[in-house]
């Protein structure tokens, strides 16, 4: 689909005040509140536009398959450092709109840290360019990073430029038998030391720590940490990233708790899997949303109802009135007719 056709579809919807639901591969249809409106299929607006490994920048259209992007990078020994989940046939645009990052997030940064520029079609069907293809750019407000994680509520990502990095040449995962409190302690201590820790996870009495970097760095760090080497490091982290690990199976609601990494163990009536040095805690629990959110808020974080058959409690932690007012004002700046993914993030948007 050409850019012009996407613009036209948005203009028509805006004129009729008819909700649109921008969609790539549909791999994250479950994420956020129930999507509404007619599907705006971005998949045909696809293709890598520019990729020059020595610039560390890749530019691709929104509908480009994330797998295609990652394959092109792998061919040149590079990667998306934030290790985004695919959850199926993900596209680059959908990946940025969802803003989710994987195991390496605590070490490498969030998805938005790697977004350099976007070509956005706003709610009036206008094509707008923000940011660019260079590492440093402070001209104008940083709209590209605002769009990251905005769940398609501000505009349709027609094209994006992301910063990429070399793949770490060496990688090794160590396993330790530890309870959750000991694991939280270990993860936070090691994160404060100059060690090449690139991911951490704890589940069911075992802590997993991935070292990545030059062979020399990994080799020097491993004996300092101890533990037992995990045979298939790549498969293990792949299962965490794509949520194919057995923890994620079954029907119990899946909560995504984001807390300061040093927050103590939270008892919330269900199994947990921790990542990001303890900053991300996945929870399988049927406790009430209010109870979970209150406990997580007390711990200095917020709780997202990630996968659940019933999201009537709202997928995301509600905003305080001042922030909500700002969100509404920004939403109307980008999408005055309120047609783009209404309610997907918050009912009021």
């Amino acid at each position, binding site marked *: 689909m050409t850019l012009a056709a996407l613009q036209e579809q948005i203009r028509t919807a805006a004129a009729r005040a008819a909700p649109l639901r921008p969609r790539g591969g549909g791999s994250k249809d479950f994420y956020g509140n129930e999507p509404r409106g007619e599907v705006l299929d971005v998949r045909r607006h696809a293709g890598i536009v520019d990729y020059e*490994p*020595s*610039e560390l920048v890749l530019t691709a259209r929104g509908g480009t398959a994330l797998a295609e992007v990652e394959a092109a990078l792998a061919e040149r*020994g590079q990667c998306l450092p934030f290790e985004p989940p695919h959850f199926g046939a993900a596209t680059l645009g959908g990946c940025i709109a969802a803003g989710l990052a994987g195991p390496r997030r605590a070490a490498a940064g*969030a998805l938005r*840290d790697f977004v350099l520029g976007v070509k956005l079609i706003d709610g009036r069907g206008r094509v*707008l360019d923000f940011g660019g*293809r*260079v*590492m*440093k*750019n*402070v*001209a*104008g*407000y*940083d*709209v590209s*990073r605002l769009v*990251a*994680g*905005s769940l398609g509520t501000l505009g349709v990502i027609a094209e994006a430029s992301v910063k990429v*990095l*070399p*793949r770490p*040449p060496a990688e090794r995962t160590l396993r330790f038998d530890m309870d959750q409190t000991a694991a939280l302690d270990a993860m936070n201590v090691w*994160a*404060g*030391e*100059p*060690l090449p820790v690139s991911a951490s996870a704890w589940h069911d009495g075992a802590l997993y720590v991935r070292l990545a*970097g*030059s*062979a*020399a*760095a990994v*080799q*020097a760090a491993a004996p300092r940490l101890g533990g037992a080497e995990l045979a298939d490091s790549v498969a293990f982290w792949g299962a965490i990233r794509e949520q194919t690990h057995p923890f994620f199976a079954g029907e119990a609601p899946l909560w995504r708790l*984001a*807390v*300061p*990494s*040093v*927050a103590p163990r939270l008892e919330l009536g269900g199994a947990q899997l921790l990542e990001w040095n303890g*900053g*991300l805690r996945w929870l399988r629990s049927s406790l009430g949303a209010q109870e979970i959110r209150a406990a997580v808020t007390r711990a*200095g*974080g*917020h709780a997202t109802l990630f996968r659940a058959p019933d999201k009537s409690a709202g997928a*995301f932690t*509600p*905003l305080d009135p*001042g*922030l909500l007012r*700002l*969100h509404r*004002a*920004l939403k109307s*700046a*980008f999408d005055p007719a309120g047609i783009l993914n209404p309610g997907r993030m918050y009912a009021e948007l």
Partner: protein
Amino acid sequence: MGEAVPVSLSHRHEVARALRGFLPARAVLFEEEDTRPYECDGLTAYRQLPMVVALPETEEQVRRVLQLCFSMNVPVVPRGAGTGLSGGALPLGNGVLLSMAKFMRVLRIDPRARIAVVQPGVRNAVISEVAAPFGLYYAPDPSSQIACTIGGNVAENSGGVHCLKYGLTVHNVMRVRGFSIEGERLELGAEAPDAPGLDLLALAVGSEGMLFVVTEVTVKLLPKPQCARVIMASFDDVEKAGNAVAAVIAAGIIPAGLEMMDRPATKAVEQFVAAGYDLEAAAILLCESDGTPAEVEDEVARMEAVLAAAGAVRLSVSRDEAERLRFWSGRKAAFPAVGRISPDYYCMDGTIPRKRLGEVLHFIAALEQKYGLRCPNVFHAGDGNLHPLILFDANNADQLHRTEQFAAEVLEKCVAVGGTITGEHGVGVEKINQMCTQFRPEELELFHAVKRAFDARGLLNPGKAVPTLARCAEYGRMHVHRGALPHPELARF
């Protein structure tokens, strides 16, 4: 600039009196001798006395200053240390200059969580100093780090010489608290990852004090690398040096720092700090590796091999920490060093795709001839951020005029090759015309809409960073380039 904005004395006294209703007398300045130190920031070519200066000490006082200004319809310009290079803190003759200088406390260091909570007036370098006993540091290190404040860094999204590997301010700030122009308290971001809703923290960082006033900042602290070594590589041609930068990155290496200086710059620096630079070289690269000793040894060897293959004529590796700091001292002192060889200099800040470096440097060399002005180059080669320094004498009106033309041409070239007019110094008042080159009217209009979402009446730092469409139309009329008027779709006045 400097033209007087007509402000009645009675208005000035009325605002000052109202501020003194809740601020001590010493925290409200309006006599010329007291307001003079605030007339400019690091961009001294632009000066304007503020109507009143307010120096609050508490968040409650900040809230009340903002509320008062909002109710009296008085514009407010926030200011940190005033080291900014784009005039972002240039006062308004009819406005209140809100100095955050008294917010100097480090509120909390949590070594286990690897964060520091600080007030906005804390100087950048102080954060690393107080974190040092825990083996931690704050990564962004602008050259002005001993003077500039974290609040100003947040406003400008400041970088430094290590940001290719460790990121800019936006990558290292987790949370900010502040107040809107209406005096409403706002908390953006969190000490937990991925705060709910839109990423307003990312929007606020680099917003040049136009969206809200920051009163508290939580920054990430990183473990200090065990060791670091820097390679100084000499090249007999600037283009070769530029290609060597691409070769290092193509080899899968992300140096901790990767800086380039041309001969005019190294000559100026050498007289000033004796950093030991190779004055025979047309350009030098400083390429740093950090990490564990084994990692650094391995990486330095790989870097040396790549640089040699790219045509480096001399390579020296720092042997100890003292030598490493000496190699860096020259780069960090580049601006003051240039300040000694010329009455004035004008620092540009464009960023370009690295592969266009040779072309842009030749373009700058041609402009030196065209305008009859010298222009040494220092630049953050790793991330393509150029700092050409045009040397001029501000007392010579013609030189100043030629400098401005020279700079405008360089910035427009940066945009033309796919880059940006500012990598880390901000737009401020300085590059506001070039914003018209980089953005189309629809985009500028959206920036104004973002501004209105936070500040509907446009009272916070008005007139900076984002030009009005009328201003762009005016600039476009004066600046026909590439044979066509920019924004032909825009109505002309």
